[in-house]
């Protein structure tokens, strides 16, 4: 076999292996969840078998052995001789990873060969049912070389390529496991305790509670948290006693126990402050548990834990903090403690796994395409042959006559050569069209799947937000002396996790508000013919592509007349106007800052956070609040939000050659305006719309970008609204409506006025998504004031390049460069020096300062000494060594006040050395004035 044939064979093997390994991987993933394992196992067996065949053809004997052993496992599993459980699946997925690695680069097999006996031994162990657990398997086998690509143990699959020692990974996963476990058990405990009070069969609940406490105890013991072992043991003991009817767990006891749940949540969170605080409370807490067990309840403890639990109510469920427990920090040393952590999100392993599989599939597809390209290139030879044969044939024919037999024979030969080349080409071509078409189909399906999955990974069920709410409602209503039943609907409604987070605060507030102001005291309810127990409902649902979250109470409702009086009292409207306002209009006043109808400010919901804050928060999440109320029957607040912020439906418009998009929900209408409808609005453009004249502003003017040529047809106008004002924004054309995956604008650009985000469309055009509200505001202000001034919210900072522009206005200002790594100091210096009339630029360290000096022109440098990348001394040295800058005055300002530091700075060439400690501005001005002369204040 020649070298090139060999390579071709390997390519073919790679492709085959890609398909089969994907099938193996998919099958293994499905196996875990499958109710019927047989069909999955059969697929897996076939895939392993095909893989074995391919490896044999390619002559990769080690892989034949490995795949044979894998196939054997599936055969045995089908025969019921061995069990493929989660541990086995982990092991097998590790094998698949290994195979993927090796088949992508069969040459690496030599290096990986050493691992083979270990892998085979593991498979053998699995086959004979000796594999106890993943950890047991890895201890039997020597750890693979860490640089090897796919060590087949379970943890390596989760943290690929982690450069940490094995012990760290183990500890880390243990810690994570404990948190997961604690999280689940604490929820079970809270739910159980809440249910206990109203349970028809408390025994069932008590058993659940006992089990939860027991499991927590076990988990705490494993990671060696003695305090939690003690606490959970005492708690479990309590439930055991209750089950034996030795004690009764009443509502006061539930309070204490909920306090214990908070305690455990704090310790499990790993937050140092919370853990320390709890450690001090431990003796008291244990004592209160002992008292409960003895059938007596210490009063002081009840009160203390009741208040603390109310405060912690909302925080407790989210106690799954990402910080590490200080007592277990061994395995988490890799986590940087000082650096600002990158925004991270929690994602289920399954979701990540699905994404990874899809991404891997995409890579495989790309490789397949390369193979197809390779095959397409095979056609070049026959094509060249065909070309030359035709050329020669033309020569023969062009000679005029093909009378002689030799000429005929020559023509015949060329024709045959052409035919042969053509046949070769056709053979190559046949099937290629189909393959390409199939490829395109697969690729677009894959891309859609990938996009859907990655969007779905941003979504969480609404219920995850609500885990703290039953507790909140219970605590708050008890404090108020009210009775309330919480009903939750639509827990499974999927919501973008970002929006979910933003919902927490407003929802919390609305629930407190409903309990405090909405629901009546039990006695008043009974008097009004309602049940003593009030009802609070939280519901979430998708409606018309938007998310609707409703908080509804069956309380008093809003007293319209009282509201009207209050509006007049506050002189917000005249008596006359107020009397004519509708209920809906009156409700709007409730959303004004500082407007509260509560006659007394209670601690719960009257803390200066009003409905205006709720509306602001919801608006920030891209939504709106709608209030509905029926006097005597209750109030409901409906929050309308986008389901996801990652995807937005938007109208695309053209301005000049560029595309901009406006969220559909923000656009009132997209219109084409007949020229006859154009109107003059006091000298400015406007158009007639629904009987009024609406001002018209050009998008190109507004955005300060070049517009296109005025279209001959009816102008395209996007109708926006800000407050009561309608405003038309003229664009060059409409380009339809579509969904965009929203991405933030490049951070280096800073805030760009009127632009909310960026995206791309299916043609690869860049599309900037406009902040419609901001556009409307600016447009309205512009139209009404008739101003033509720049709308840039931040005037462009003077750059190093527009010296000339800046200096034409007055006598040239002296320029000072401030080099300091503290932003505070840079800002302070800039202010005082600019107040003195100097022009000031700033650089964050010596390196940036050096760059600025070489590009710009400065009269003086004010530099710090200690800075990252390049310190002040080095900067001064460079300045003095540079022909152009050698004479530039430099003042060093440093915290260092030792004589040797001063000497070092001055020896490097600084003109002055000032110490920051107690530095007076006057002294600084004096030094600067002496070096470059004073500057008249502007």
């Amino acid at each position: 076999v020649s070298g090139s044939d060999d390579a071709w064979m390997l390519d073919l093997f790679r492709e085959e292996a890609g398909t089969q390994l994907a099938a193996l991987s998919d099958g293994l993933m499905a196996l875990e969840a499958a109710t019927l394992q047989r069909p999955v196992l059969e697929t897996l067996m076939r895939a392993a078998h095909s893989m074995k065949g391919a490896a044999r053809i390619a002559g990769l004997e080690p892989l034949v052995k490995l795949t044979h052993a894998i196939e054997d496992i599936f055969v045995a599993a089908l025969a019921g001789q061995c069990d493929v459980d989660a541990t086995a699946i982990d092991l097998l997925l590790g094998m698949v990873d290994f195979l993927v690695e090796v088949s992508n680069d069969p040459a690496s097999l030599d290096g990986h060969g050493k691992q083979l006996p270990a892998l085979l031994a593991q498979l053998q162990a699995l086959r004979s049912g000796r594999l106890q657990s993943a950890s047991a398997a890895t201890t039997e086998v020597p750890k693979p070389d860490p640089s090897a690509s796919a060590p087949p143990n379970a943890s390596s699959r989760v943290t690929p390529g982690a450069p940490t020692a094995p012990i760290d990974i183990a500890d880390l996963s243990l810690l994570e496991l404990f948190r997961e476990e604690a999280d689940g058990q604490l929820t079970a405990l809270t739910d159980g305790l809440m249910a206990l009070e109203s349970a028809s069969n408390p025994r069932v609940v008590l058993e659940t509670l006992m089990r939860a406490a027991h499991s927590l105890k076990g988990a705490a013991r494993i990671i060696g948290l003695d305090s939690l072992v003690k606490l959970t043991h005492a708690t479990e003991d309590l439930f055991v006693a209750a089950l034996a009817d030795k004690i009764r767990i009443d509502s006061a006891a539930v309070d204490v126990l909920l306090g214990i749940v908070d305690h455990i949540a704090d310790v499990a969170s790993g937050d140092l402050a919370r853990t320390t605080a709890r450690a001090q409370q431990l003796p008291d807490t244990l004592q209160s548990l002992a008292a409960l067990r003895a059938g007596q309840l210490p009063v002081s403890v009840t009160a203390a834990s009741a208040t603390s639990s109310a405060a912690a109510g909302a925080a407790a469920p989210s106690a799954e903090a990402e910080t590490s427990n200080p007592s277990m920090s061994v395995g988490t040393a890799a986590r940087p403690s000082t650096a600002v952590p990158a925004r991270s999100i929690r994602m289920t392993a399954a979701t990540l796994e699905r994404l990874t599989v899809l991404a891997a599939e995409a890579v495989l597809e790309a490789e397949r395409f390369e193979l197809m390209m390779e095959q397409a290139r095979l056609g070049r030879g026959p094509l060249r042959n065909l070309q030359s044969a035709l050329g020669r044939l033309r020569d023969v024919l062009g000679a005029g006559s093909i009378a002689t037999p030799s000429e005929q024979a020559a023509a015949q030969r060329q024709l045959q050569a052409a035919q042969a080349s053509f046949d070769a080409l056709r053979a190559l071509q046949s099937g290629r069209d189909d393959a390409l078409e199939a490829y395109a189909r697969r690729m677009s399906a894959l891309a859609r799947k990938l996009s859907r999955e990655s969007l779905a990974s941003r979504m969480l069920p609404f219920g995850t937000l609500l885990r703290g709410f039953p507790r909140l409602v219970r605590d708050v209503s008890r404090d108020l002396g009210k009775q309330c039943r919480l009903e939750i609907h639509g827990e499974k409604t999927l919501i973008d996790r970002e929006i979910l987070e933003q919902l927490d605060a407003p929802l919390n507030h609305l629930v407190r508000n409903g309990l405090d102001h909405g629901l009546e005291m039990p006695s008043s309810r009974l008097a009004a013919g309602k049940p003593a127990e009030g009802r609070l409902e939280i519901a979430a649902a998708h409606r018309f592509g938007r998310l609707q979250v409703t908080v509804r109470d069956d309380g008093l409702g809003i007293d319209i007349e009282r509201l009207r009086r209050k509006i007049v009292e506050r002189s917000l409207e005249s008596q006359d106007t107020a009397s004519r306002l509708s209920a809906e209009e009156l409700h709007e006043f409730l959303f004004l800052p500082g407007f509260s109808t509560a006659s007394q400010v209670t601690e719960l919901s009257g803390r200066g956070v009003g409905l205006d804050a709720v509306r602001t928060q919801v608006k920030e999440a891209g939504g709106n609040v709608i209030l509905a109320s029926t006097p005597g029957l209750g109030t409901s607040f409906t929050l309308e939000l986008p389901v996801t912020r990652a995807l937005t439906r938007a109208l695309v418009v053209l301005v000049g050659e560029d595309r901009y998009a406006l969220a559909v929900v923000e656009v009132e209408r997209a219109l084409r305006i007949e020229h006859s409808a154009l109107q003059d609005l006091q000298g400015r453009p406007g158009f007639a719309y629904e009987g009024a004249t609406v001002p018209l502003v050009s998008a190109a003017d507004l955005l300060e970008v070049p517009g296109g040529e005025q279209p001959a047809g009816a102008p395209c106008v996007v109708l926006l609204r800000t407050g009561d004002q309608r405003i038309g924004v003229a664009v060059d054309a409409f380009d339809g409506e579509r969904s965009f995956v929203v991405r933030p604008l490049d951070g280096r650009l800073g805030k760009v006025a009127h632009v909310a985000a960026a995206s791309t469309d299916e043609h690869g055009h860049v599309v900037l998504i406009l902040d419609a509200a901001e556009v409307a505001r600016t447009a309205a202000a512009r139209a009404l004031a008739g101003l033509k001034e720049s709308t840039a919210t931040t005037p462009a900072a003077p750059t190093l390049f527009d010296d000339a522009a800046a200096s034409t206005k007055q006598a040239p200002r002296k320029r000072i460069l401030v080099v300091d790594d503290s932003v505070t100091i840079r800002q302070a210096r800039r202010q005082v020096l600019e107040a003195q009339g100097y022009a000031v630029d700033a650089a964050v360290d010596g390196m940036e300062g050096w760059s600025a000096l070489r590009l710009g022109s400065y009269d003086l440098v004010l530099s710090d000494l200690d800075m990252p990348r390049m310190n002040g001394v080095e900067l001064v040295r460079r300045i003095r060594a540079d022909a152009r800058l050698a004479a530039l005055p430099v003042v060093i300002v440093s915290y260092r006040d030792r004589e040797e530091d001063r000497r070092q700075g001055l020896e490097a060439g600084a003109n002055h050395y000032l110490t920051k400690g107690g530095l007076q501005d006057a002294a600084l001005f004096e030094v600067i004035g002496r070096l470059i002369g004073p500057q008249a204040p502007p």
Partner: protein
Amino acid sequence: MEPAMSTATPGLTPADEDGAASGRAIIAFRVGARWLALAAAQAREIVDILPAHRVPHRRDARFVGLVNVRGELVPCIDIAVVLGIERASVDTSLAHAARTKPRMVLIEQDGQALAFEVDEVNAVHLVTQEALRAVPPDEPAETGRFTQALVDLPVGRTALIDADLFWYATSEGLR
């Protein structure tokens, strides 16, 4: 990240990796009539010209707009403006000018990418330290301050751009 010179740039002669110790790999490109070079490690990839979307309210001539590089939105700058090179001064009579095509160079530093259009990308060259010459005083003032060293390549005298200074000046233009 892919090696700078991946399959996307078939016209380039990849630098000899073994030689990396004795010299440095630079990528040469033409802007107007001038040949310039950046450290090859800075270059992420070379792509066909992409249309730039203007960013509202930004009138700094150095900043052209945003380009879409396979879904990634990358700021695009005008290298001629940054360096102060006359783009129109290109001598179209250059024998090869007609055969070459403008390309877009993507550079990357600290995970941040930047794109700019050049009239032609030549190749990755491996140059030794000795081949680098100091900048003579007669170097045109504008490009001179960005020039770290001069090197004679087969295409002609090439100015090696000071990457730090270049990044500083470009990021300045984005704000």
